[in-house]
């Protein structure tokens, strides 16, 4: 090929665009989040004939869990949602309606993506400390939050601030949870700050 009038080294320099390891790893997490049917990492250690038996056993077990949940709604624990699972990041958006969900995890001006230990700790504390509530809520939901977790299905919740009391509900459940006042206040403060940054984004 023809010489590039003395710019050969400069062309080569342009081949190396700096990219941090963190940036690279964060992207890999997001890629796996974007691939819904990701392959399982663990090998199937059961022989095939045992799989059917395992499926049946699982069905019976799940049926038992579902029926016992139905009969004892009051005993549902919000701590099961996040537990101790590693939160790789959180997507937060302003809620539009009670039935739609806005924080779908993709980059947009309307969604904030948060990766911050203090936020994760605050959110986990608020979620884990909440109790099922019978409250009738008049206001509209304020925030949609998606917790994207490593090795676990992401958790989607809607958050209300009803006269200073913080409530949330998982998108796949009808149970409303109330967050204790102190934890709820910090939780909502974080969300307000994040929402403020979303609204400022042109």
């Amino acid at each position, binding site marked *: *090929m*023809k*010489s*590039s*009038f*003395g*710019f050969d080294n*400069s*062309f*080569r*320099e*342009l*081949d*190396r*665009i*700096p*990219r941090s390891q963190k*940036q*690279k790893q964060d*992207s*890999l997490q*997001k*890629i796996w989040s*974007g*691939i819904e049917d*990701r*392959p*399982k*990492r663990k090998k199937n250690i059961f022989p095939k004939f045992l799989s059917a038996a395992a499926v049946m056993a699982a069905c019976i077990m799940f049926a038992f869990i579902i029926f016992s949940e139905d009969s004892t709604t009051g005993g549902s624990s919000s701590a099961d949602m996040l537990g101790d699972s590693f939160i790789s990041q959180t997507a937060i958006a302003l809620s539009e309606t009670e039935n739609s969900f806005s924080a779908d995890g993709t*980059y947009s001006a309307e969604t904030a993506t948060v990766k911050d230990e203090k936020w994760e700790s605050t959110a986990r504390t608020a979620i884990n400390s909440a109790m099922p509530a019978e409250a009738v809520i008049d206001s509209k939901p304020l925030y949609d939050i998606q917790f994207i977790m490593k090795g676990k299905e992401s958790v989607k919740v809607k958050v209300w601030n009803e006269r200073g009391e913080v409530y949330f509900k998982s998108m796949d459940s009808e149970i409303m949870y109330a967050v204790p006042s102190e934890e709820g206040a910090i939780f909502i403060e974080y969300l307000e700050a994040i929402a403020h940054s979303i609204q400022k984004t042109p």
Partner: protein
Amino acid sequence: MERISAEAFEDIYSEYSDRIYGYIFLLVNDKEVAEDLTQDTFIKAYKYMSQFNGESQIFTWLVRISRNVAIDYLRKKNRFKFFSIEKFQLQSDEETPTEIMIKGEKVTLLYEAIRHLKLSYQEVLILRKIKEFSIKETAEILNWNENKVKITTSRALAALKKELQKRGEIHEELIRIR
């Protein structure tokens, strides 16, 4: 074809994602967008891995996907669904990113000159001169024939030289073609 394992996919990501990111970055001129489009590229690569027939190098195949992803983005960004790639040029108010500035004046000058060329010239220069793909590989990525790659590269280099001269920042010895 069987679906690729998570380990194999992560190996491919680890090996090639930096170079894919760099390629997209040169096309879109924005760090965050380049990272997003790199993610899109690998999500698509994962989904269509069964269509990779091994005739080309996997990196060439990934660059082809990332090129389509980046062109889609540029089309949307410019709000013309079918803008002419031939005529597309950098907006004059776009700033040169820090990632390029830190490489020095000469690299910045070259980058800015390339960015002021029409997109087809930018693309062929990025692939042939920066990424050092062969004519055959470049033709495959751009979906052109090899003759078009040769002619466009030659015209792109001439246009680049003119752009550099126009900017009046180039030393005499640098524009001498050996």
